């Protein structure tokens, strides 16, 4: 299989969700389920149209925090593996933003681990979005 990079990473280019799923599955034959979350740019946010979003991150710290999040989710939910990828740079409606693939022996841990991971990512990983609309650009101040 082609090299997909670190299992916790920030990248400018699009990710391949199917390839990430295949890689997670290949970790162990004990995996009984994988929950895949993909966050996508919407064309409407907080009552206004969105034409693009700029994602800024703190290079170094963002990757470290994603890695710590991955380790913590695996430990806390007894996951077999987890991949988390966040994109940076300018994205348009319909573009993928973030991917989390949580693999476990049984579905409950995979669902819970995946949900916990995206919630914690939104709370702790130093990434910010600036939404561009027809009426200008704004830095979001909260994370719905």
């Amino acid at each position, binding site marked *: 299989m082609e090299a997909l990079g670190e299992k916790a990473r920030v990248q400018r280019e699009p990710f391949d969700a199917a390839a990430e799923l295949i890689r997670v599955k290949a970790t162990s034959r004990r995996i009984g389920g994988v929950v895949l979350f993909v*966050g996508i740019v919407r064309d409407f946010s907080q009552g206004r149209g969105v034409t693009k979003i700029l*994602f*800024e*991150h*703190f290079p*170094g*710290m*963002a990757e*470290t925090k994603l890695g710590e999040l991955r380790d913590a989710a695996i430990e806390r939910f007894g996951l077999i593996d987890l991949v988390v990828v*966040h994109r940076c740079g300018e994205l348009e409606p319909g573009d993928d*933003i*973030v991917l989390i693939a949580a693999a476990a022996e049984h579905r409950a841990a995979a669902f819970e681990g995946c949900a916990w991971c*995206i919630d914690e*990512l*939104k*709370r*702790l*990983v*130093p*990434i*910010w*979005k*600036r939404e561009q609309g027809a009426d200008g650009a704004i*830095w*979001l*101040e*909260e*994370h719905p």
Partner: protein
Amino acid sequence: MKITVRYFALLRERVGHESEVLVWDDTEPTVGRLRSHLAARLPALGAILCEGTLLVAVNREYAAAATVLKDGDEVALFPPVTGG
């Protein structure tokens, strides 16, 4: 001592640059006092620099107001994160 101060997102835009090397000496060199020093130096940014929701990372780890700084530290200031 020398502290590298970095700004991100809205704060970076308001300050007008990404980073600066600050020569700063204080009898109690804590994160909280550094913020007060920066706010006093940049009155137009005083409100945003004192904002309770502002986050601080010292050497890329989240830090509290009481964290003590040492020569060569990197202090990053940024608004609440909004990734995902």
